[in-house]
């Protein structure tokens, strides 16, 4: 072959630091799909990337922020939301997006998550729930289902603990927009991310993802393709369902949709009002 084939550029490549390719993600991992969702949401909303900040904590998902051409920051483990709160309060003009893992946000950073929901600071938080601590090699975490195997919950007993349902957690903590999708429902998830960005307040979007390398392997869920096919099969769309009914049973039924969409005074808006009043 002498003719060179033209290389097609991915339509979202303009948002990604190409000099940092390839991604660190394993093949079959969902994080790349979610990275694409965030890029598409930025594109669809035509966000100014110089006014957009993407923050992550530590973990496989924690590496996501660093691939974007926006302002990005990689915090200590669990602290992405706390960092993002400082950014948003200090400069409310910025569009702040947080993307991190379930361990980062619901274990070590769980306290920041619930208090940020309660405080209602305008930001969009995307949690990729792969049911495990991926980066450290697949130990159980706060979303690992009861009796599942992991590096620290080996056979034959499996996980002694019980998981958080992150939709219920965020909703009951006061988030104004709460949604759950699986990584294969890319268009719907992207729409929810866009809604989250547009809403003035704390939005929480859980994306159920696959970690075939660790969690999948240890629980015999098959390879990445098989795991993603499974997600498609068990996803059940129930938009508007009360959040406390948004069940998550990996084997049989993952209830997806938008469960909370309410209005509540937003922190930085109230602060600006306070500044105005004090000036008068």
């Amino acid at each position, binding site marked *: 072959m002498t003719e060179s084939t033209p290389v097609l550029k991915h339509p979202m490549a303009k948002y990604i*630091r190409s*000099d*940092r390719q390839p991604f660190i993600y394993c093949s079959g991992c969902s994080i790349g799909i979610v990275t694409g969702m965030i890029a598409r949401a930025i594109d669809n909303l035509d966000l100014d*990337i*110089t*006014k957009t*900040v993407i*923050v992550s904590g530590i973990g496989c998902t924690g590496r996501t*922020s*660093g691939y974007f*051409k*926006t*302002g*990005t*920051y*990689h*915090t*200590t483990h*669990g*602290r992405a939301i*706390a*960092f*993002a*709160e*400082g*950014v948003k*309060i*200090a*400069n409310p*003009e*910025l569009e702040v997006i947080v993307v991190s893992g379930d361990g980062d946000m619901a274990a070590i950073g769980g*306290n*920041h998550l619930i*208090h940020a929901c309660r405080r209602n600071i305008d930001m969009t938080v995307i949690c990729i729930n792969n049911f495990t601590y991926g980066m450290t090699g697949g130990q159980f975490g706060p979303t690992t289902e009861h009796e599942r195997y992991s590096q620290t919950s080996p056979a034959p007993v499996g996980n002694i603990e019980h998981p958080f349902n992150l939709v219920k957690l965020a909703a009951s903590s006061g988030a104004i927009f709460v949604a759950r999708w699986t990584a294969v429902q890319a268009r719907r998830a992207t729409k929810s991310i866009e809604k989250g960005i547009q809403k003035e307040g704390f939005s929480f979007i859980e994306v159920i993802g696959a970690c075939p390398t660790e969690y999948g392997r240890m629980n015999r869920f098959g390879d990445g393709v098989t795991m993603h096919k499974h997600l498609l099969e068990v996803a059940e769309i129930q938009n508007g369902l009360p959040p406390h009914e948004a069940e998550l049973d990996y084997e049989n039924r993952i209830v997806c949709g938008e469960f909370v969409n309410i209005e509540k005074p937003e922190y930085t808006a109230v*602060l600006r009002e*306070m*500044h105005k009043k*004090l000036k008068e």
Partner: protein
Amino acid sequence: MPERVMFTMGDIACAEGALSAGARYFGGYPITPATEIAEWMSKRMPEVGGAYVQYEDEIASITSVIGASWTGVKSMTATSGPGVSLMLESVGLAVMTETPLVIVNIMRGGPSTGQPTRGQQGDIMQAKWGSHGDYQIIALTPASVQEMFDQTVQAFNLSEKFRTPVFVLADETVGHMRERLVIPDEKDLKLEYRKLPTVDPSEYLPFKADDDLVPPMGLFGSKYQFYATGLTHDERGYPSDKENVQIELVTRLNDKILKNSDQIIDLERFMLDDAKIAVISYGTPSRSAKKAIRDAREEGIKVGMLRLKTVWPFPEEQVAQLASEVDHIIVAEQNLGQVYYMVKAYASPTPVHLMAKPAGMPQLPHEILDKIKEIKSI
């Protein structure tokens, strides 16, 4: 604002110093004996268009302060030992990502919950070594209400100039004592602001330092986009596990403080010119030492004091020089010996005597005078 005079406590002087320095973001969690700073800020910050944010814990507080600083807003937190213990992981993050911010530690009795309402100087080594890895820190040790103001302004100036977290380490007595405070006219204050990049955004290397070893800082919302991470990173800010990248980064971060230490170290030489005995002290005990030295002078004892207004970076050369001038050094500090070990390391072979007190009441003037007389008689 024109000059103002107040009769107030150290904690409030510290808060006013921060506001005068231009701080507009405070993230914190209440703790004795630093609570008055938070309370004062909750009222004053909104008045000046800033934010007082009360977080769920000190970990969120410090991390949010790092976030706020990356938008270009001068930012701070204030706490005491237990809070600092929680913050330490992210102190390392601030060091590694070269984030200007100020942490005020009004030191109380420790370890653990200790004596919340009693002062101590037990956190000197914590400030230096608390976070993991090799790094340098800047720490200021005020000894009066006026210095709580002045040195908080200075803490912001140093943090901005060197893009690094700076501690104000005040013992509880200084935090809670009331004295006259003169807040200077704002046009008489010399304020520093971090260097901003000037290159074309396409050429911007966020962690490439200038000759002073400090890189210009791109900010969120500016035309400069970047990735900042606590991972070891190259000049582009990109993570690297290469040995040379680690060595270069850690060496520069340390040198940035050590090689600029002449711009940071602040010492008061008190009656030292003809002294044969030198007291080294800081914070409240240094006030007792001054009285003791005056009393000793009346009795004809040639004694003086080197008062540390900054403990980190440690004044190695100045202590070595002092040791060559005097026969004995007494270190008076409100702990079981922390600065003492540093002094010993640089004063050798001059004998160094520790006057320790791991409790709330600082060494009293007559106790220090007795110690001076005891050393004189050796």
